[in-house]
């Protein structure tokens, strides 16, 4: 049984679903950031797989994956700084306790 790009795409979908579940379900804000990283990685895998399906004269998929990684780095830095600021002022990073904006 040979491996096709569809195998990679299916695997990426599974990882995306797991990352989504981490974001929705885990209580700790840092765990939620980990879930976001998993989802971004799954998207990178899909981009690279589609880059192999279509003509590989251009490496658009790989270039786009590099941009995604750069944006992910910026997102992680700002997100963790925000979480640390919240922790300093409230003493917790549990999502259930951060309800000051609840309507």
């Amino acid at each position: 049984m040979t491996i096709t790009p569809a195998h990679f795409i299916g695997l990426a979908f599974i990882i995306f679903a797991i990352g989504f579940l981490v974001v929705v379900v885990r209580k700790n804000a840092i765990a939620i950031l980990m879930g976001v990283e998993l989802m971004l990685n799954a998207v990178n895998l899909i981009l690279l797989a589609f880059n192999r399906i279509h003509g590989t004269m251009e490496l658009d998929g790989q270039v786009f994956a590099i941009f995604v990684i750069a944006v992910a780095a910026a997102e992680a830095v700002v997100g963790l700084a925000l979480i640390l600021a919240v922790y300093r002022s409230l003493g917790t990073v549990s999502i259930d306790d951060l309800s000051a904006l609840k309507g």
Partner: protein
Amino acid sequence: MGGWIYTIAFYVCAALLVASALGVLLLRNLFHAGLSLIAALFTMAALFILLGAEFVAGIQVLIYVGAIAVLILFAVMLTQRIAEEKVKRYTRALLPGLAVALALVIVMILVTTGLTGYGFTPFATEDTVGDIGKALLSTYVLPLEVISLLLLGALVGAIVLARKEEEK
């Protein structure tokens, strides 16, 4: 793209990746979840190599494993008490979250079955790294500059946010 070695490598990497991603979801200790995330990012780099994207795999290891994962582990150590094992892992959204994730998987399986007819196309050149560099500095030069601005903004923002409040 052939060979049974390739097939075995794919399935081993896929199993490791799913297992370590599930570790991020299930592990009670957040530090262990972070280590599991590092394992997932490494196996993802291996899958990138299987797709012929060596440069992206190198970037993945350098930036994700070298920088982002270490940053996340630092944040875990700064905000967690080590003895904090009794805390609940999940919010009240557990069941709705599971339902939505299941629906997501079903839809995506339906999408994926439509793609099974496509095979790998070979690369036009051997020098993919050189081609990526040329593309970044010709076709994609504007996004590249915007990304550098974004990174500068993120850097300044993180410093402002993480700085200690000055004593009045």
